[in-house]
């Protein structure tokens, strides 16, 4: 193997092993930042040795043993030992080598679950949670994270350093919460993963409409979570939602990089493997027998679209009902807006417009580009192209995404061109 090929192999091993390694070490040293340092040290040693000695048969175990030795050395040598003794003095968790062995032989999935709960801890800002999760669970480099978020590498590096310091300073316990707290904390975990996914799925700013790496990483983290916390319906709900949305990737932009709306997508190109996986995950959520939460309901809506062979076969009445249910568990003007669209599709644009008009006064939607965009769409369908053009122009002025703006301006121009009112009809909700 050449040097660079060993390097790439080590990268791959790191990607597979790093989260487990950090999670196991964090349980031992009770500090996520220190655990990552130890894991990184082991990686550096591997990078020095493996090109000479060859890659060991069980690289994961090799890295763990090496990191474990470093941890013991460090705990012995530094004042940390005393500090840690003091911190843990109240509990029974003292460090002897036997304890460390036991700690490292424990259940890996529990460790991973603890790590996810820690990196998504509410003591951190939303941005810090995302960066830290990608770093510690996804095994991504700061450079990769920075590129995905279109930020400077130093910004992300700083964000991660600060997050680790915050966790350490606020003495966040490395544990999976129980009872009511579990529910609350789980929702922050799901939020972080979905935020990651959405950031990649429809970039809020910049020229590129999609930042696929984030989607892929979010989906992978969701799948991990579903395996290690299988009794939570919302976890399966979120995975289902992400699988089904991902199934539309290759149809969401045309060759020129412009977005293609849901109703105009070539359904034959949807990824049916991902749709099947999404439907199976939704089924798992339903089988748990509890009322569906926001993610599972959104997944059920996505499933309706996925199961319609053609756009015209979409069961809009069912989608409207699902939005109704969603507005009960997660009341929001945006859900109302989507419900209005579904109702317009099921029962006619006039009914939809009535609902949308009620939302115009909603302060939280004042600068939300999809409100005028939807309103414009319904007005076109009702033949009121003059009003529609104004709405599209307003929507264009509000969006931060260059490609979306282009599409909206095109629609406005179409309306202007056909003052008589035979402007193209297009749905939203891509």
């Amino acid at each position, binding site marked *: 193997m050449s040097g660079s*090929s060993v390097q*790439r*192999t080590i*990268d*791959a*091993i790191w*990607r*597979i092993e790093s989260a487990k390694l950090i999670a196991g070490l964090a349980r031992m040293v009770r500090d996520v930042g220190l655990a990552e340092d130890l894991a990184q040290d082991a990686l550096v040693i591997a990078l020095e040795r493996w090109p000479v000695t060859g890659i060991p048969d069980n690289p994961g175990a090799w890295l763990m043993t090496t990191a474990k030795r470093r941890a013991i050395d460090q705990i012995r040598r530094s004042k940390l030992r005393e500090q840690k003794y003091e911190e843990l003095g109240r509990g029974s968790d003292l460090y002897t080598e036997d304890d460390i062995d036991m700690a490292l032989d424990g259940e*890996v*999935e529990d460790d*991973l679950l603890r790590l996810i709960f820690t990196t998504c801890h509410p003591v951190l800002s939303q941005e810090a949670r995302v960066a830290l999760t990608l770093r510690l669970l996804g095994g991504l480099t700061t450079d990769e994270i920075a590129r995905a978020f279109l930020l400077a590498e130093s910004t992300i590096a700083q964000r991660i350093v600060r997050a680790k310091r915050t966790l350490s300073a606020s003495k966040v316990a490395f544990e999976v919460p129980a009872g009511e707290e579990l529910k609350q904390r789980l929702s922050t975990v799901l939020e972080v993963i979905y935020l990651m996914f959405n950031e990649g799925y429809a970039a809020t700013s910049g020229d*590129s*409409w*999609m*930042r*696929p*790496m984030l*989607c*892929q990483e979010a*989906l*992978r*983290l*969701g*799948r*991990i979570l579903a*395996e*290690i916390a299988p009794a939570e319906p919302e976890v399966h709900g979120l995975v289902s939602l992400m699988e089904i949305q*991902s199934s539309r*990737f*290759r149809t969401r*932009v045309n*060759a*020129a*990089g412009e977005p293609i709306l849901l109703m105009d997508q070539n359904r034959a190109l949807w990824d049916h*493997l991902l749709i099947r*996986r999404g439907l199976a995950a939704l089924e798992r959520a339903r089988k748990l027998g509890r009322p569906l939460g926001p993610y599972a309901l959104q997944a059920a809506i996505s499933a309706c679209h996925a199961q319609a062979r053609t756009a015209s076969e979409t069961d809009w009445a069912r989608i409207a009902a699902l939005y109704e249910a969603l507005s009960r568990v997660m009341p929001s003007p945006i859900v109302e807006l989507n419900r209005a669209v579904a109702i317009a599709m099921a029962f006619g644009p006039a009914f939809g417009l009535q609902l949308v008009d009620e939302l115009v006064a909603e302060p939280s939607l004042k600068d939300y580009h999809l409100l005028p965009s939807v309103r414009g769409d319904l007005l076109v369908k009702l033949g009121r192209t003059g009003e529609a053009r104004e709405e599209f122009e307003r929507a264009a002025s509000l969006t931060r995404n260059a490609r979306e703006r282009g599409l909206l301006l095109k629609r406005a121009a179409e309306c202007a061109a056909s003052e008589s009112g035979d402007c193209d009809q297009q749905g939203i909700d891509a």
Partner: protein
Amino acid sequence: MRFMMIVKGTKDSEAGIMPSTELLEAMLRYNEELAKAGVLLAADGLHASSQGIRISYPEPGGKPKVTDGPFAEAKEIIAGYTLIEVKSREEAIEWALRMPDPHGFGEGEIELRQIIDAADLTQNPETLAMEAALREKMEGTRKP
């Protein structure tokens, strides 16, 4: 990027002998490991080729010929596949190396093939557009 790990057939798989409990359990543990890493998309085993059917086209553009199994050359036969989604070719190799030896007896063989996906998730729309344009050009030049 997606990879298919193809497990080649052996004398046993072709004879319809089901894998031992030990191997079956090792495979299940392996699949579980893949699932817990979030990389597993699908995995299935296939019946022996004696239950298979081949459709071939001996004449270009002619009628298809349907042949019933079994087919010769066990090593060219697929006994099962595992679909994974990973970040690099090296990661796919690393996972494949961890798969249990499919049949033992010195016959085990796993083949790794990358799945073609023009809109591979790692490509951005600009790259895709370029690729589409290039393909159009190539097709244009190829035509007489």
